[in-house]
């Protein structure tokens, strides 16, 4: 067996260098945060910054003692999964109708839905806060699930729409002719064909909901606070505790980063909006 020796052209070396620099630049804050989480508060603010030190786990214990991590993590889990399921339940039929039975208004409706994402969330703060307050839903998981769902719906409908569009309608027609009811058609034909799209849409919604901070911070307190609220506690009136803030942040993002790592193939597939097969 002959092995081809890889040849490196200057352009390839340059591209690799640029790619690595950009990646390191983007990753640096996260990496530094992870490093800081294992320092003592003193080491965390040392000048010049310490790169080599003896790691400690005390920040994690303190964070867990002072604020119940599991409580916030559970809230994050409930709101993320809840809004993903609710979102898929609403977005999938909408995307089905628009992809397979388009009307003259379909394009406009899609654009209108997307345009709502262009408005800053703060713009809707007042009405939503008042709505939540008057319906007694401040600091409740239900309110968060509903708001996360609404915030993610446009992007979910778009992704599912793009994925469904790639499936020839004649295949669904064929299922009808074969005697399938609407439900059988959806379950036995559409679902297996669109499972990639549905999975990546769900994953994205899960990640977006998990990372959501604005509404969690403004609409919740102790009871329904998500991990975003947990992190915020450590930039407190008593001053910044860098090491503990970092530890809390690390604990908050760790699950979703691990999750994202394993599902990145699905995510990328969905985010290319069906442009690449």
């Amino acid at each position, binding site marked *: 067996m002959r092995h081809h020796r890889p040849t490196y052209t200057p352009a390839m070396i340059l591209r690799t260098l640029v790619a690595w620099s950009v990646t390191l630049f983007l990753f640096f804050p996260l990496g530094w945060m992870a490093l800081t989480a294992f320092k003592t508060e003193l080491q965390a603010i040392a000048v010049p910054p310490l790169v080599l030190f003896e790691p400690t786990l005390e920040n994690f214990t303190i964070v867990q003692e002072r604020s119940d991590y599991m409580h916030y993590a559970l809230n994050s889990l409930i709101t993320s999964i809840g809004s993903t399921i609710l979102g898929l339940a609403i977005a999938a039929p909408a995307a089905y109708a628009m992809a397979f039975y388009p009307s003259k208004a379909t394009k406009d409706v899609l654009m209108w839905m997307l345009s709502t994402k262009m408005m800053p969330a703060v713009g809707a703060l007042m009405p939503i806060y008042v709505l939540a307050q008057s319906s007694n839903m401040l600091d409740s998981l239900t309110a968060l699930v509903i708001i996360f769902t609404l915030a993610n719906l446009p992007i979910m409908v778009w992704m599912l729409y793009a994925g469904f569009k790639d499936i020839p309608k*004649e*295949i669904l027609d*064929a299922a009808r*002719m*074969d005697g399938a*009811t609407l439900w059988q058609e959806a379950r*036995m034909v559409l679902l297996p064909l669109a499972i990639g799209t549905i999975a990546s849409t769900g994953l994205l919604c899960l990640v977006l909901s998990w990372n959501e901070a604005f509404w969690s911070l403004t609409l919740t307190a102790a009871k329904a606070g998500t991990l975003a609220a947990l992190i915020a506690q450590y930039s407190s009136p008593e001053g910044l505790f860098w090491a503990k803030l970092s530890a809390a942040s690390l604990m908050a993002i760790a699950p979703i980063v691990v999750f994202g790592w394993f599902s990145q193939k699905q995510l990328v597939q969905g985010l290319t909006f069906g442009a690449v097969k």
Partner: protein
Amino acid sequence: MAYLELKGIEKFFGEHRAIKGIDLEIQPGEFIVFVGPSGCGKSTLLRLIAGLEHIDGGQLNLDGRDITHLPSSKRDLAMVFQSYALYPHMSVYENMSFALKLAGESKKTIDEKVTRAADILNLTDYLERTPGALSGGQRQRVAIGRAIVRAPKVFLFDEPLSNLDAALRGQTRVEIAQLHRDLGATTIYVTHDQVEAMTLADRVVVLRDGLIEQVGSPLELYDNPVNQFVAQFIGTPQMNVAPLAQLPAEVRAAAPAGADGGSMGLRPESVRLAEAGTGVPATVVLVEALGAETLIYAKTQTGAQMVARQADRANVHVGDAVGLVLDLSKAHWFDTQGCTVRNPV
């Protein structure tokens, strides 16, 4: 009583009236072909019968039952699509057994029926493959297999051969004809290819702009078209049609009274090429030598275009002066509206 009966079937797309009231009666076992130029509504009509589009007016009866508003899944019809529309995530076996599975047939019955269909269609070796691993012709056969395992009341074919190459198309056409002879199932077949229509059909339905122009056996349509549209749609090359004004006096004299100001149609095989000086004087514009036959395109001195078809090879060249002998006993006469005027017998 008719088996499948269309009564005043209508379809609107927005304001556009795509199907304008179709009446048609189809007998059991008949092979009906819907033919017409693109946009004539033939595929829409098939989808209306299939229940894939909503019928906006009229009534559809099948075997004595009103199925106008019944969903496709309850109509007991099978359809072969232009794109085959196989389920890409299922094996050939699963594709063919899907309908039976939905109908709740036992595993044993399903196995028997699929095996038999696979045998008829030469698919036995491919049952475990997915459609992606099959050639175009094999996919086409799976699509047909999926339809025949169900033994439906009516088979619907929507331009099933248009994705195949010419050689395979001819071969599959013969197979479909044979299949229909063997199964004797009522079939509706949509095509824009009049050769398929002529070779497969018991009766051909010629459609234009959402209306039926004529229904009849292939040769009926060829010999007695009701108007200029049908006359020119059926047959290749097209029937020659020339305005009477462009034809010599002796031709005009033969025209029936109703054809005044109209035109005359003559099939290419009824035009014979002769020496210059006999018949209608003309100049050769194009010669197509097809081997078994030769087509000579000529233009008369009065400006009429004519095609002559002859079985032997022609020793003429572009630009030659020739004479065209017209067999007026075979002529079709059309009035100013393009409707056929019959010669008084």
